[in-house]
């Protein structure tokens, strides 16, 4: 059986950053397993600009951003296998993978970093009534067809969902000669970035209809029309508000789901809110030596944060391996997200293992204006940061100081919540 100190599942932005960080932290025996025929993951098809503002202080396109990390992996001489699908991860960290040349192989891993990313919610998950013709694509599938393969999936387009990929694809399809007729969003706000709404929709005169959803899809072979309607606060269509658009294509940008089939079958404990693993301050899952980072852990809106998080996961995996697989003792402090905060990553903190500064990331469940992000140690409020706006589409964070956690007597829980005052 092959054996590596660290096996990284996925060669996208998270996997690449984790690998480089682990190598720099002194672990040499690292293997990246990537199912596609190249490294870089989904960034290869995200040819628009806007990546890397935080990390590199410049605006890169997806492939350019990915290449900076790929190059690091090449330069550091980290091993990787392409066209390789991981079929199983066992609780004792035996990774079963398969490709054309090696066949089905098993790899013993000192530590595993889960970096599988996420996938798009399909139409089926929405249970949208109507026909099931050709011409219904998730926005990411359309993105791959246009940007990688060079095919136009449609000429007259309706988009459901205003996630960033949907907004980006509205512009891409328009620039490629298609007519994007409308973007419908079931929520009263868009899940996408403001700049994408302005630069991908407003620039091209594409209407965004908030609180609208698709209620019928016509076309027995290819899509011929889509009907949208306004929805009430219960997200149910309001009769009489129907609008029918003739079109040949419906793009869906209705959410991303962390891809955790492997984590689940390995027995990793999952967080029902994020659909990602429950992790501690070291980004370690409920299975010792199995770490998680990037969109498989929770869906990010900025790749810069993915890289940052993955770096920590890589470093911690290296630390775990170098310590001979032993964690350090200490009490687990529980993190609680409540009153508008939907979840936190991590879910627990062991003060002995945490860095001097620890970024806790979370998302809110609705739009809040002029509100406070508050942090409580047990029942005592220790942080109260004013925010002009908080939106579900934008990941938030609070930074905890190790010294403060250490000094607080009998610290059991840390609560993150949104307060009006």
């Amino acid at each position: 059986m092959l054996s590596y100190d660290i096996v990284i599942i996925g060669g996208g932005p998270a996997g690449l950053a984790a690998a480089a960080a682990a190598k720099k932290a002194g672990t040499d025996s690292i293997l990246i397993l990537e199912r596609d025929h190249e490294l870089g993951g989904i960034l290869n098809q995200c040819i628009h600009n806007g990546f890397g503002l935080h990390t590199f202080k410049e605006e890169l396109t997806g492939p350019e951003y990915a290449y900076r990390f790929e190059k690091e992996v090449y330069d550091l001489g980290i091993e990787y296998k392409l066209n390789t699908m991981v079929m199983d991860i066992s609780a004792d960290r035996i990774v079963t993978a398969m490709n054309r040349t090696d066949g089905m192989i098993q790899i013993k891993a000192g530590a595993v970093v889960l970096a599988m990313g996420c996938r798009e919610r399909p139409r089926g998950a929405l249970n949208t009534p109507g026909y099931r013709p050709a011409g219904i694509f998730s926005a990411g599938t359309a993105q791959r067809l246009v940007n990688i393969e060079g095919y136009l999936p449609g000429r007259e387009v309706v988009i459901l969902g205003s996630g960033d990929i949907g907004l980006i694809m509205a512009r891409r399809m328009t620039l490629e000669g298609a007519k994007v007729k409308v973007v419908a969003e079931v929520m009263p706000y868009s899940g996408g970035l403001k700049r994408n709404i302005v630069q991908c929709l407003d620039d091209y005169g594409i209407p965004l209809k908030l609180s609208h959803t698709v209620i019928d899809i016509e076309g027995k072979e290819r899509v011929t029309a889509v009907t949208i309607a306004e929805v009430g606060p219960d997200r149910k269509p309001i009769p009489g508000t129907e609008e029918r658009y003739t079109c040949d294509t419906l793009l869906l940008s209705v959410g991303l789901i962390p891809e955790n089939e492997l984590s689940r079958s390995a027995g990793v404990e999952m967080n029902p809110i994020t659909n990602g693993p429950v992790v501690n301050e070291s980004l370690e899952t409920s299975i010792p030596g199995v770490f998680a980072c990037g969109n498989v852990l929770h869906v990010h809106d900025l790749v810069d944060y993915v890289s940052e998080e993955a770096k920590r996961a890589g470093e911690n995996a290296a630390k775990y391996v170098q310590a001979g697989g032993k964690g350090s003792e200490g009490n687990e402090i529980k993190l609680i997200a409540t009153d508008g905060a939907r979840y936190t990553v991590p879910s627990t903190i062991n003060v002995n293992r945490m860095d001097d500064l620890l970024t806790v990331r979370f998302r809110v469940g609705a739009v809040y204006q002029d509100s406070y992000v508050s942090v409580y140690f047990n029942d005592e409020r220790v942080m109260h940061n004013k925010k002009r706006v908080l939106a579900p589409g934008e990941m938030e964070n609070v930074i905890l100081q190790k010294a403060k956690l250490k000094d607080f007597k009998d610290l059991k829980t840390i609560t993150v919540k949104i307060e009006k005052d």
Partner: protein
Amino acid sequence: MTYDVIIIGAGVSGAASARELSKYKLNVCVLEKAEDVCAGTSKANSAIIHAGFDAPEGSLMAKLNVRGNEMMDELSKDLDIPFKRNGSLVVCIHKEELDGLKDLYNRGVANGVKGLKILSREEVLELEPNLSDNVEGALYAPTGGIVCPFILNIAMAENANVNGVDFRFNTEVETLKRKDDGLWHIRTNNGEYTARYVVNAAGVHADIFHNMVSAEKIHITPRRGDYCLLDKEMGSHVTHTIFPQPTKLGKGVLVSPTVHGNLIVGPTAIDITDKEATATTQEGIDDLISKASLHVKDLPVARKVITSFAGLRAHEDHHEFIIKELPDAPHFIDCAGIESPGLTSSPAIGEMVAGIIADIEKPEKKENWNGKRKGIVDPKVMTLEERNELIKKDPAYGNIICRCESISEGEILDAIHRPLGARSLDGVKRRTRAGMGRCQAGFCSPRVMEIINRELGIPMEKITKSGGSSNIVLERTKAMKGDE
């Protein structure tokens, strides 16, 4: 060329008839208007092998249901069809309706259904702890089963084809008439065919062809059934097929595991007029969710659905199979009104259709008829060593194309190149399950298209989801005159 027999329709009845007829020295051809077999009613149903207690005693439906059910063990082995006798339960949730179970039991016994048993509340809850708290008892039918409806249909067609039956796809019958030469002249969008016998296995369209040739009219209503298919996470929520007690409208909304480990909920029963209208409606989906929840608890349909779809049952006004040579149209054999339990009955329907022709024609049997078919290999059931052996022989089995269902390129190549191979995304999907998982082909469709393009030389822009104008991509980007 004049055929001995032309079968209209490559659904499950047509395919079963073709396979049974392929045992004889007869030239048989199946005309199918879609681009593949299993494209109409046969592809969208409950995928249940019914025990046979529903149909009225003495009816043809009852007889063929029980016979078809009995044939399924051997047939599934011979043709490598995913099939499992998981047993079915008709669940009673109102004490005052317990007598209904007894009636059903008696009817089943009269129909020849074996092993029926009435279970008490405690007994049924022991079998199925996720049934409603209101359950009062159930009729248990151990012979009830589940099948892959696509493979059942495809396998019978493939096997017929291997045994000499021609299939003409994208060939829609327009009119047919028996002329003075004693032959049936069948005009299609693809030229004229002639045959001595015609088998009308046209599903919801069977009344159209029947009425073209017979003075005694029949009427088939497309009765739409909406379904929801749930994620494999829910696949063991129940292990038996759970039926409510039947009503006049049919067997009601069932909840059942599928042979592939999903959970299926459906169907509704909505009579419509358009014979192609397989659109689901919000009311339909809401209706089936509420009905299913009466018998099975904790059913998170809305959260765990991976797809919803609708199928059309070919409901004949008298709710009975019509399988006979028409008195006023010699050598025209109806195979009409094939609604539930049509899938279960299909092997017996094929037997009966072939029997009608054999009785008149007295054809010789082929000595070299081969009733066996090897399905597409399923590497998932292999050991590591077996799988490596397979990949060594053909590396394509080491390349996963559909990540949700773990389908390899090798399986897809087999689906494309085997007899009556797939030419569309749905064709590949129904043969291999690539694209049938939780991401519903978002990941694999561009990859499957590349394989179809490479293997069959079909340009990407011409590859379809399911034939006709169901193209996936429309043109190359930046295409200019003069580009290759």
